[in-house]
């Protein structure tokens, strides 16, 4: 007895397809509807968060490692892009991809070192990475501008502000789409299944032949690539970099909060989380001004998610929806008992090699 029947699955697919279509429409129509620079900036902020959260989720969702240090990668992407434009004179978008490529290559030894350890040490390393980069970028003022900040020339100097925002809105949307597609491809692939097995039980998956270290490293490097692209695109859009904001454990953990809130095991989880938390932060700023209370709010939200909703919003929501739309399902034990009763009533025919339908076990 299968636990979901054909009509239910078809219904589920239609619902998901409709949701995705509506989501795309909303994202694409937003700049036309919210036509002022402030709203566009908020929209870009949320898309930027969504890119970073989805990129983070290559590691968090597929390997189960919680990295609080992804700000290191986005910060390096941002500064890399900025420095390639200002010092090396590369055109903006060439710099963006070159910087991202450099960070991706750098992520190989970093990931190799960090992933050798598990659990607590990994988190400590990820935080340490952000903190040391913060120190370095603040101190090396001759190269990075230190605390004075680094100004990045705009890629399209002819555009005025609203146009500039609109172009970058769609650029961020495109980057988000790329990240989502990549995540989806991995999610349904054999490689992705292997990663999920590593997340469940690393030693057991090794015993089944899965190259656990290589798998984790690849997930980390792909995550680094998208994170660096997000950071670099931000640098091109925002135009001004400060180490305190680029190498911030707080920003990194806000991104983690978004992924967790939405649901790390789901494609759109980080996006949903980014929308909710991003909008919430903006609202908080409007209502209460830029006070330290937003730290308290973030803390409470993060703590609440960890304690009460560690799987995120999407599973909770789909659980509710499933109860409304799906037929009542008996528990596994009941099914087993029922089938057992059936099989006890009429012993099944056994073939000569003993390979007939076997008895059900309790």
């Amino acid at each position, binding site marked *: 007895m299968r636990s979901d029947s054909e009509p239910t699955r078809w219904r589920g697919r239609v619902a998901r397809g409709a949701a995705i279509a509506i989501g795309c429409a909303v994202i694409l129509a937003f700049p036309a509807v919210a036509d002022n620079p402030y709203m566009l900036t908020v929209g870009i902020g949320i898309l930027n968060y969504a890119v970073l959260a989805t990129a983070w989720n290559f590691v968090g969702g597929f390997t189960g490692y919680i990295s609080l240090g992804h700000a290191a990668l986005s910060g390096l992407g941002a500064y890399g892009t900025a420095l390639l434009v200002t010092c090396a004179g590369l055109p903006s978008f060439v710099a963006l991809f070159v910087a991202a490529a450099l960070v991706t290559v750098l992520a190989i030894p970093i990931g190799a070192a960090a992933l050798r350890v598990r659990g607590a040490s990994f988190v400590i390393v990820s935080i340490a990475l952000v903190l040391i980069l913060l120190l370095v970028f603040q101190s090396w003022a001759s190269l990075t501008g230190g605390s004075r900040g680094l100004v990045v020339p705009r890629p399209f100097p002819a555009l005025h502000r609203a146009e500039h925002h609109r172009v970058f809105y769609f650029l961020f949307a495109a980057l988000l789409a790329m990240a989502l597609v990549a995540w989806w491809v991995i999610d349904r692939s054999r490689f992705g299944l292997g990663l999920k097995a590593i997340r469940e039980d690393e030693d057991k998956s090794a015993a089944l032949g899965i190259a656990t270290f290589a798998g984790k490293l690849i997930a980390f490097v792909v995550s680094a690539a998208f994170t660096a692209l997000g950071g670099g695109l931000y640098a091109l859009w925002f135009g001004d970099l400060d180490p305190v904001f680029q190498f911030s454990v707080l920003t990194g953990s806000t991104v983690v909060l978004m992924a967790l809130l939405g649901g790390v095991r789901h494609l759109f989880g980080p996006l949903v989380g980014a929308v909710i938390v991003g909008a919430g932060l903006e609202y908080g700023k409007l209502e209460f001004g830029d006070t330290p209370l937003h730290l308290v709010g973030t803390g409470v939200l993060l703590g609440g998610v960890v304690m009460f909703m560690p799987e995120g919003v999407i599973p909770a929501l789909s659980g509710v929806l499933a109860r409304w739309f799906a037929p009542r399902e008996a528990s596994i034990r009941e099914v087993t008992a029922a089938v057992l009763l059936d099989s006890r009533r009429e012993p099944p025919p056994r073939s000569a090699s003993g390979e007939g339908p076997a*008895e059900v076990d309790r």
Partner: protein
Amino acid sequence: MTGRADARARGLQTTELTKSFGGVTAVDAATVSFQHGKVNAVIGPNGSGKTTLFNCITGMIRPDAGRVSYRGDDITGKPPHRIARAGIGRSFQLCRVFARMTVLDNLLVAVRAPGLPHQLASAHDRDTIDRARGWLVRMGIDHLEHAEARNLSWGQQKLLELAGVLMAEPDTILLDEPAGGVNPALIGRIGALVQQLNAEGKTFIIVEHNMDMVMSICDHIIVFDRGRPIAEGPPAQIRSDDRVLEAYLGV
């Protein structure tokens, strides 16, 4: 004579394998040759080093000294996944399955698919699913295909674990206490399954305490005590060996 030497060369064997933990020597210069193509058993009192032996063979633990070879290749200290890919599968003493994955996915994980295009292809393709379903039917848990592994009973999880190991198509299978905590009917079924699979060409090495099962299905038994083999041979010989009685009863 040379025929037998060939067979041994093709099988799994350890040479002077040693592993200590702190002051305790779990495996003490153990030299063992398992018979390829047969059902082997490793028996012995608790603490005699059987599971540590398995862990050293499968790469989960690095031995302090000695070698492990399989089919003539030295696999000592290699990473676990390479040893698995060499054709050695294992089950665990405390049955390990992927708890939050479905029963079907638990099997799909074991598919060997080298090369980038195969790795990026969908995990749920028709042929693989059919093969997996075949194993589930053979184990009798096909009706639980979409259930999460953590919702299965202990016995069902043991069958699931075994199905997963078999899905990877190993030549040699190490079973660590397959009858542990399992009802007699299921023990019988597992025993029958081992014999069927052995007839199909798979080599088994079983660590077990259940003497009925061991004596009834095994061709070659190795007795371990305090980290080293003290006797080996067919069941009839082992049953009447004084050294074995001494090891178990301390007499």
